[in-house]
């Protein structure tokens, strides 16, 4: 395994914030660490890049134990949420900064930085001051500054959270493009499910310092291992301890002797959400908007197949 984390535990005073975490990351993979606020995902990142000392466990990168190695000596680079571009350096100097610590001539470093600017599609901004860039441009330079040193592992701590929705979507695609072109291994922290699905090869879902599930996005959605995963990822109708049904897996048919009654209709554009009363229980149902909309009070036939936690569908 390229990155191997084993039994990683972190305590603050007497409170354990990361409980014996073990996981692997493969070369050229993007692992997304997903979870609610305060679940420990940023602490995990801080343990990986070495800014936080761990209390137990070990971290191996490319078969080397890096548990005790200082952040500046780890072949890991971090792109922080607040960009942290140096305000006293221009764009090119910011990009070249990490190359200073590698045995590479100034001319080569400059060449590399110009190439990176091209890759980032920001060539006209080489001499711009950081303060002159927009949020999205600053984010791209921060990303480029991390990528240019070609670390074995690039960590990204909610890097797109300060951007607006449209820019965020664009940056996700950019990141995937850059990762493919440069063959990078990355760990990306986010609390945004859509972002996790769009970026990650695999997703590590955390809660309260425990790993709840590591798998692909599809697997996480279709085969949640426990109630937390089920509730956190997407919407659901829980039928009993283990049984559930996703809103889009319920089929409604207009029927005057149907057992279900439409109680509320929420128009969403491409889809329509309904609240249905059926067998004494309320169900959330999502249907494609194909022009037929059930009215409130309409009787419907309700068909679904029960799914079970921890069992492939």
């Amino acid at each position, binding site marked *: 395994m390229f990155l191997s984390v084993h039994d990683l535990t972190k305590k603050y005073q007497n409170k354990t914030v990361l409980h014996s975490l073990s996981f692997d990351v493969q070369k050229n993979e993007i692992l997304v660490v997903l979870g609610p606020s305060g679940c420990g995902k940023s602490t995990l990142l801080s343990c990986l890049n070495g800014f936080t000392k761990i209390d137990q466990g070990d971290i191996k990168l490319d078969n080397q134990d890096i548990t005790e190695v200082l952040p500046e000596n780890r072949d890991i680079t971090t792109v922080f949420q607040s960009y*942290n571009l*140096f305000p006293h350096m221009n764009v090119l100097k910011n990009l070249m900064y990490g190359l200073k610590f590698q045995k590479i001539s100034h001319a080569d470093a400059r060449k590399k930085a110009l190439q990176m600017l091209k890759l980032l599609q920001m060539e006209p901004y080489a001499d711009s001051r950081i303060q002159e860039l927009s949020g999205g441009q600053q984010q791209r330079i921060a990303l480029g500054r991390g990528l240019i040193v070609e670390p074995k592992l690039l960590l990204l701590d909610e890097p797109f959270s300060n951007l607006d929705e449209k820019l965020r979507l664009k940056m996700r695609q950019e990141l995937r493009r850059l990762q493919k072109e440069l063959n990078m291994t990355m760990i990306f922290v986010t609390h945004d499910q859509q972002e996790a699905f769009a970026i990650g090869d695999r997703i590590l879902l955390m809660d309260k310092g425990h790993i709840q599930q590591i798998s692909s996005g599809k697997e996480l959605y279709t085969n949640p291992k426990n109630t937390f995963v089920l509730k956190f990822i997407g919407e659901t109708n829980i039928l009993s301890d283990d049984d559930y049904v996703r809103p889009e897996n319920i089929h409604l048919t207009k029927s005057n002797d149907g057992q279900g009654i439409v109680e509320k209709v929420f128009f969403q554009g491409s889809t329509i959400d309904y609240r249905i009363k059926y067998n004494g229980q309320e169900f959330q149902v999502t249907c494609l908007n194909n022009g037929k909309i059930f009215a409130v009070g309409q009787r419907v036939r309700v068909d679904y197949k029960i799914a079970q936690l921890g069992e492939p569908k």
Partner: protein
Amino acid sequence: MSKKHLGSFIIDKFVYLIITLSILIFILYPYLSIFVQSLSETGQKITDFWSENFVLTQHSVVVALITMVLSLIFSVAVTINFAFLSKQKQKILRLFLLVTMVSPPFVTSLAYITLFGRRGMITHDLLQLTINPYGPQGIILMQTLSFTSLNALVLIGLLKKIEPSMINSARSLGAKTDAIIKDVIFPLLRPGIVVVTLISFIRSLADFQTSTIIGGSFKMLASEGYFAVISFGDIHRAALINLTLAIPALIGFFLYIKYDRDISSVHHGTASGELGIPLSKKGFIFPITAVLSLLFYLALLLQYGSIIINAITVKNMGHFQLSWQPLIASKIYLNDTIFRTIIYSIIAGLLGSLISLFIIYYGQVRNSKWMRLIEMIGTFPYILPGTFFGLGYLYAFSKPPLAITGTTAIVVINVIFKQVAFATKAAKASVNQVHPIYFQTVHDLGGTVLNEWNDVFFPMTKQGFALTFLNGFISTMTTIGSIIFLVHPGQNLMTLVMFDVVQRGEYQVAAVIACMIILICVIMAGIVFLLIHLSERSKKHVSLSPRLN
């Protein structure tokens, strides 16, 4: 217009007029007076003065340059060294540095004489030497010591504002300790370094106390200016000297305005107020800063140690014994001076803060360009020598229509308006935290300008007001330059008495007064912070109460 609104309108205009007039009369007019009158009155011409007293200027500039470089080296070393220390150690050392803020400016010279003078504790008692400590070396060393603390406090303030993740980013890219200091910390401190360098140079030029006390036969512009008034009553000569000193200060003033703006633009993003983690103690820079800092802290420790020892002991058969003697001896010099000094400082703190808050209110909130000009005029006393301000008062207010020299009023007015320069800066920081929407809301709901002041402006800048007051109080408690020519016998203030007894060689009495000044400032700081803390607590209580119901 309703009666309520008309009343508010009149009061608003009245306050605006009073603020404008007071700054023009009590800050601009004295400066203009000294410029116009000293250059036009009969007596020596300024150019003749320069050619005849070139050596004085040379001495002052050389001392100022060396002091500037040394205090810069030490203050940068102390600041960078802070980056290696744990939060707790930083806190303790910062408090130690803060003591300098509440000390009279020439306390270092007093310590110097008691330690290294002819009967000094170190040179005479410990090393059995009888050396002459007076001269430029003492001036340079003592100025360096007192400027280093003040410079370091400014730079440490900047250091704390550097985003921790900025440093972590550099580390994550492979930067080791020395590279972080060189590439991140130092460039971000640079505007601050320029400002403190400039201020050190100007302060050194203007400092007449150190050279008067320990300069000996070494003559400098500032001390000559002081002697010209005190010994010879030659105000014209003093004015020429102060005009000469004002030239570099004025150049510095414009540079200061430029770089001071840079300081505020250095930080963007969210400053957490703490360094990410202390830097690892590796590389070349750490040992250098550690040694320089240690030297500096030792000197500071020696300085305050000697002051305290002198204030509470007497020497008996070569041994120090605890005694009330110095305190009792100081009684005849002080009389009602302590009470008067405290009252003046309270008045200066309160009115200085109030005027400053109004200046910032009109300049920032009401966006008055004229008031921003007034604010700039108000900053003159910050950068121009204190004695220059004092002499300006002598020129401006010794004849009708405003003949107030010799009164208590002139001293009080002087200390109030001397505060405005610094207080407006503090007030600005406080006012900037109040969102403009609050002011609009008052008017939107039918309120007047008076409601704006009463319900939004003053309640929301309360904490800023308290801190500005404290600053004004401390600054008046420790001030000397601007009032030394204005105070008449019987109206003495503590720093002036202290300066007087040092010159008489009554070092123990001076040490007692120094300790008293420090103690009074610390007690006032304690009261102000306690009040702020209590008001914060009651605020928390109010915000919790709905939930309790």
